[in-house]
């Protein structure tokens, strides 16, 4: 019930009300959300496919990470802000949508994968910057790619759930 009260407050706030009622605000923010996701998903895929040894094998892994990370982080922040704005329009309804909850959980798991990669696997990177990528790093890349694909899939499914929000 506290959750219901919180969601009511969000939906009735100036931002939530504007997002829910304006005819053009939701599509506008949603377009920005999609654009941010495209940049994020694309740059994540380039890193993951490099880790899996499928593209850009002549480009060191460290350089790939250095070049892509600023765009991944920037577009993630943009996705999170626009995504939160979209959520304020129907806060409670989204929380009751399976695809929305699954998307949030999968993002959490993808976040753990990122922490494991940067905290543990990446440490020995100097040894395999250009050579054969060890299986642990390949697995982290493959896991990341599958998780983010699942996140995008759940995201698209939100629009088709519960009679369309």
């Amino acid at each position, binding site marked *: 019930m506290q959750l219901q009260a919180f969601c009511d407050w969000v939906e009735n706030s100036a931002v939530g009300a504007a997002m829910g009622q304006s005819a053009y605000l939701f599509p506008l923010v949603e377009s920005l959300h999609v654009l941010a996701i*495209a940049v994020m998903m694309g740059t994540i895929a380039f890193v993951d496919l490099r880790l899996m040894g499928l593209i850009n094998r002549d480009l060191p892994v460290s350089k790939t990470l250095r070049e892509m990370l600023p765009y991944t982080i920037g577009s993630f922040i943009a996705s999170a802000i626009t995504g939160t704005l979209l959520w304020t329009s129907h806060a409670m309804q989204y929380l009751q949508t399976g695809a929305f909850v699954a998307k949030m959980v999968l993002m959490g798991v993808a976040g753990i994968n990122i922490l494991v990669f940067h905290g543990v696997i990446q440490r020995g990177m100097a040894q395999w910057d250009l050579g054969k990528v060890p299986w642990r790093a390949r697995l982290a890349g493959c896991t990341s790619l599958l998780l983010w694909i699942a996140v995008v899939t759940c995201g698209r499914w939100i629009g088709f759930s519960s009679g369309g929000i």
Partner: protein
Amino acid sequence: MFNELVREIAATAASHVIRTVSWIIPAVQTLHILGFSAVVAAVMLVNLRSFGVAMRGEPRAAVANRFLPIVWYGVPVLLVTGVVLVVGEPHRELLDPIFQLKMALLVVALGLTALLQRPLRADPLYWDHSTARRAGAVTLSAVSLVVWIAIVFAGRWIAYWNVS
């Protein structure tokens, strides 16, 4: 002209299947999103290289060779998934001015991308020979980036324009 075509497409068995099996449209839209994510990110990196922002350590031609094939392989994937969506809901797309604008912008975007890439094949330093050439590359890239972003926007607005 389009009305007739829309009726004919809508009457096909394929259109009926795509329309009535509930998971097909979101699944194909998801593939479409994954495809244009790769294309948009690749275009962005190549264009930002023109501005001297991304991939600064690498020559223009190397960056173009690395990322533009993603565009040329990705666009056919987008066309195939896009055609499935059009066949499923022909009235929603073909009769929609936003969809028509999106297709026109796509032709422009592909033209601009080819225009930036093509001279590099014969001469990897083509865009580096003079200040005018460099300015040309920056202009082409800026327009290309704006057009590609407009395509993504137009794609999303199809869902909101004239829903019938």
